[in-house]
């Protein structure tokens, strides 16, 4: 039956076309900063503007800071909406929020407020995941963090003043060794780490 063979062929081409599309369309839509750079900002509220004006889209963010978007976690941290905003606008699709080990108990206590969240935090071996409406936010202490962004360049936010020298060296190590590749690093209220990207 010609109709049958034509329709079967068409469906198979369609299916495999869509399958390939699911692997290629998203990455093709991601936009990066070329050449890469490191920017010092006075507060996290400037990151919102920086990310928006850099024409970014579909990115992974790795945030080394004491506070994140604590609006969702029930805190009144004033500058916390930049990640929310970036995720809603498609700038960031997934985020890693890495906190200094000494502040981890503080984060765990916030986790106990999960009744205030529509979706509770999902526990993992390394910490927990906030299932944000616009993507996953992995939350963990630095000691549990192993970069898993692969070859994909990440947006890095670093708040140097909250990190002891030993932990800051570890973060530098991720960048030096290429475990964590970034095209836009925002250093909040301090000097850029010596391992900042060399582009």
């Amino acid at each position, binding site marked *: 039956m010609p*109709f*049958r063979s034509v*329709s*079967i062929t068409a*469906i*198979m081409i*369609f*299916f495999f*076309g*869509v*399958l390939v*599309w*699911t*692997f290629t*369309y*998203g*990455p093709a*839509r*991601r936009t990066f900063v070329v050449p890469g750079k490191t920017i010092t900002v006075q507060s996290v509220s400037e990151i919102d503007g920086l990310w928006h004006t850099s024409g970014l*889209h*579909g*990115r992974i963010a790795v945030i080394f800071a004491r506070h994140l978007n604590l609006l969702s976690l029930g805190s009144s941290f004033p500058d916390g909406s930049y990640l929310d905003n970036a*995720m*809603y*606008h*498609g700038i960031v*699709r*997934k985020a890693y929020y890495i906190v200094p080990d000494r502040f981890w108990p503080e984060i765990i206590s916030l986790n106990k407020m999960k*009744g205030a969240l*529509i*979706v*509770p935090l*999902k526990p993992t071996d390394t910490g927990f*995941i906030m*299932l944000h*409406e*616009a*993507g*996953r936010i992995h939350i963990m202490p630095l000691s549990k963090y192993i970069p898993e962004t692969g070859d994909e360049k990440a947006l890095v936010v670093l708040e140097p003043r909250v990190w002891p020298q030993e932990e800051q060296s570890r973060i530098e190590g991720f960048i030096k060794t290429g475990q964590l590749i970034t095209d836009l690093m925002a250093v909040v209220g301090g000097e850029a780490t010596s391992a900042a990207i060399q582009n």
Partner: protein
Amino acid sequence: MNETLTNNSIYIKSWKLAILVLILAAVFRLWGTFDLSEYRDDEFLHATYAKSLGAYGTTTNWGWHHPQLSGLIMYGTIKLFGDNPVGWRSSNIFFGTASVILLFLIGRMLYPGTAVPIIAMSLLAFDPHNIYISRTTLVEIPVTFFFLLYLCLLLEYVENNRATLPFAGLAMGLTMGTKAYFVFAIPLSVMYALYRIRRRGELTRAVMADFLIALLMLPFAVYFLTYVQWFSRGYTLPEFIQMNIDSAWALQKLSMDNFFMHRDFLEAGGTPVEWFVKPMFWGYQRLLNSEAGQFLLHCNNPPFRLLVLPALFAVSLNAWMKRSVREFLAPLLFISCYLLILLAQRPIFSYSSTGLLPFAYLALARTVTIFAVKINREKVVYACFISAILIWGTYMFPLVSARLVPLTPFRPILSMVRYMGNF
């Protein structure tokens, strides 16, 4: 007196009555729907969801748990008609009305030569709660439409040997892309189709390949494409799978605490176990004075839905005695959808019953025809039953559509309301 109907009876073969019911179904879903210019129920969430989905590929509320097609459809109607009641509600009016005629067509294939199709479509057309839901933005209406479209096209292929299998696959993908209510019903209907073909001795390798390609590869391709906006945010297939696992996990974690703002409303609709057992009315009012007011009442269509469980039993018994799998399909589909809801470990709003109604009403209609044949009073029974459906639906219509009504004629209903908020 023998009242056995001939095949050309208005209740069996004629399209005239079906078209009349369809027109009335459209009128009940359309009349005054755009008069309420403010959001009602979850419309604010849905409209915000749709606009954010269209613009940024994600939601700005918790709707991320659910597939995205309904949001994209609403985004399309908002772009077409504007960010107003027409843009918000027009797609549900279409899908709600079209579901009525699809149920008629399915009834013709499952119960040929009977009055089941016209009775079942009338039950759905004049179900006050279905009318209510069709006049809002709730996703239960499009997902039920897509599943009925899929089932209709699958039955056309199986029962009438038409080349509709690829179109059934397309509709299956659209169902999957709207909401997960039919996750058990879809494989069940595929198994039914394979069984029917096997009974005819036509189940060859080529047919199996057709099923695999049309009802597995095609639906999944369509399903992936319904997430076009989501993929445009930079995601890939492994992240898509992860997101689906996350959403299943998150849905299981929802508790009554998550619905604290709507707790009274949710509880007034009853638990799923009660949906077909207890008469329930609840909703919102806007009183003009002590004599008149407007109402947006939800209900579980008490006179008819309370007959559904006995009807399912009667139809199942009849199917068993006749050794007819085809007669058994409607109860099986009902059970498959109901089971999913009963097994879900979270609070569920009663409008989730929308997906059950087509099969509930097929079973109820079949029971009516069995009864009518048994007492040999087909014409009288059908005329009385359809009239009762129409009278009840017409009486309830003002209460579900915010028409300004005097209170006196509706006091019997209003006295039974379990929860009444204001709008």
